[in-house]
């Protein structure tokens, strides 16, 4: 009964000054809508930029680095164990780029529960022959199907069919920058010279575009067996094992573990692409800061309007208290007014934020660098909506808190005697 009565009074006070109420609510609506739109857009952009690199990058890369041994023979000598040994001009010994025991390692990695998938890769440095000119390039020999499943290879093949790299013998997918230089159409044959001097014809079955021009000018893809053939290596020859995990965040730990177990070099994605993480988190930080600032401004608007309302309603508050409403009841009434402004304003704001996001999502955004993107990217993460709704209630509560406390402390005697 009491709560219904208080709700009724709060409602009447709200509706009696509906224009003021509307202004306050619009303030909340606007800020929440902007908050949602901003975060959605910023994070959409973040995802896009991250995806540009992260989706195509293995979470853990296993490889064999060519480097001088840390353990030079002189260190093993008992004669010099007490002395500092300075060795200049250290060179790498006879080491291979190939991963030793690649088959068992690949199997062991695939069996790991944390791993989504693992695929071999073979990088070959080659020259593409364009008439008399030789152009340096790289052929990535990949397991085409696994590469598509794990690293979205198919998304970046803009012309031709990606699976032809596997199905057509001696075929290659050129980076579109490289294809332009070579003037190679699909179906043409390009001549490739390996470092060993072997010459090899490869059929162009597609173009790929990564969005990063420097890469597109030198990189090309072929099936791993084609590449092995090119280099004259057996079927178990590979230079990299690319691992994709279920949880991106586990990559550093897994990399460290594999390094020890397999006695191999392992690089995790966080180390390899630290700058992307930093960029993303700073962009998020900025959008949160702007969104929350907007909300605080709206909060001050509500604070003002409630304060004014309380001065206007001094008499009403006094008589309510004189006829048996306690300070707590009055406090509740004004808090309720503030919270309902926050609730309804926030609700409309969430809907409008969603609508704005959808509008942005439909604005065409065509750029040569990003073949898979047709419109502006937007992230519809429900977390933003929760945060937005939560903050609209919190700010309005805080905005209502002090005016409501003031109202609850109104001394009816002073008001009534003052007349």
């Amino acid at each position, binding site marked *: *009964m*009491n709560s219904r*009565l208080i709700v009724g*009074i709060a409602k*009447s*006070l709200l*509706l*009696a000054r509906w224009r003021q109420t509307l202004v306050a609510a619009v303030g909340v609506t606007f800020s929440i809508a902007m908050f949602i739109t901003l975060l959605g857009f910023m994070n959409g952009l973040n995802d896009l930029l991250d995806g540009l690199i992260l989706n195509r990058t293995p979470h853990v890369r296993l490889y064999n680095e060519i480097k001088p041994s840390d353990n030079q023979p002189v260190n093993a000598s008992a004669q010099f164990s007490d002395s500092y040994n300075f060795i200049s001009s250290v060179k790498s010994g006879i080491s291979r780029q190939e991963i030793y025991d690649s088959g068992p390692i690949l199997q062991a990695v695939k069996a790991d529960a944390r791993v989504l998938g693992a695929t071999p890769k073979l990088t070959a440095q080659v020259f593409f022959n364009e008439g008399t000119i030789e152009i340096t390039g790289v052929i990535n020999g990949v397991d085409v199907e696994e590469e598509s499943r794990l690293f979205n290879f198919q998304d970046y093949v803009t012309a031709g069919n990606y699976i032809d790299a596997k199905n057509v013998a001696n075929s290659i997918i050129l980076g579109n920058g490289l294809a332009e230089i070579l003037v190679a159409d699909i179906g043409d044959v390009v001549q490739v010279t390996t470092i060993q001097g072997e010459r090899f014809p490869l059929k162009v079955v597609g173009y790929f575009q990564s969005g990063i021009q420097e890469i597109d000018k030198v990189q090309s893809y072929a099936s791993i067996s084609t590449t092995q053939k090119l280099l004259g290596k057996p079927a178990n020859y590979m230079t990299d094992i690319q691992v994709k995990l279920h949880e991106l965040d586990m990559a550093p730990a897994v990399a460290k573990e594999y390094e020890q177990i397999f006695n191999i070099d392992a690089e995790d994605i966080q180390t390899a692409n630290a700058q992307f993480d930093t960029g993303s988190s700073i962009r998020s930080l900025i959008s949160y800061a702007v969104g929350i600032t907007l909300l605080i401004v709206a909060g001050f608007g509500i604070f003002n309007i409630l304060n004014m309302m309380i001065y206007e309603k001094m*008499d*009403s508050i*006094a*008589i*309510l*208290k*004189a*006829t*048996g*409403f*306690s*300070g*707590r*009841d009055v406090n509740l009434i004004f808090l309720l007014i503030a919270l309902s402004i926050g609730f309804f304003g926030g609700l409309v704001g969430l809907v409008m934020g969603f609508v704005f996001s959808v509008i942005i999502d439909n604005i065409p955004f065509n750029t040569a660098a990003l073949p898979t993107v047709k419109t502006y990217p937007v992230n519809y993460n429900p977390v933003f909506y929760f945060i937005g709704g939560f903050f609209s209630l919190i700010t309005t509560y805080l905005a209502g808190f002090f005016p409501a406390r003031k109202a609850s402390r109104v*001394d*009816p*005697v002073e008001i*009534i*005697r003052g*007349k």
Partner: protein
Amino acid sequence: MQDIILEARHINKQFHDPVTVQVLTDITFTVNKGEFVSVIGKSGCGKSTLLYILSTMDTDYDGELLIDQDLMTGRSDTELARVRNEKIGFVFQFHYLLNEFTVLRNVMLPGLKLGRYSEQEVEHRALERLKMLGIEQLASKPAYHISGGEKQRVAIARALINDPHIIMGDEPTGNLDVKNSNLVFDIFKELSEVHNQTLLIVTHDQSFAENTSRIIEMEDGRIIRG
């Protein structure tokens, strides 16, 4: 012995701002059920101050106050609000109706707050009281749409809604013309004689006071008569 509704025991009050002034000195008196008491005195003799202490709204005093033989002194804000709601009806010089509500709703509010009756019953009781005061035709009008004399009658109806033990008035006719003053006085008189309602009215209207059953006269914070 008659029922004692209101009892003041040695009430003293001082204002401290800006200098300490003794406003009320050793006020001791009782009001019995059914009495129609008027409190008179010159401006500044402390009669309004006394009324606000008696009404429990002002708690800053020394001495003891009993309403319906319950000690009010030292109770919490919420408890006192409940007492005001249940046992005291107010009529002020200014009407203090809530403009956001209709006349009927204004009368109903203290009744709804009390929660003793259902909403339909409270509405019925409010209409009864409006009818008794001859203003039932105003029930559905907004509170700011009626005249000053009518507002004061609505305020009286509001004071009556919870069948209070006592009705307190602070110059209830102070803002009204002669015709409306007489009307309001007649209502009080009728309440007192027909319904045995206890009333305690502060006034400076001599003719008003002379027609009540008991006069308490104050001077310089003391009761000098009554």
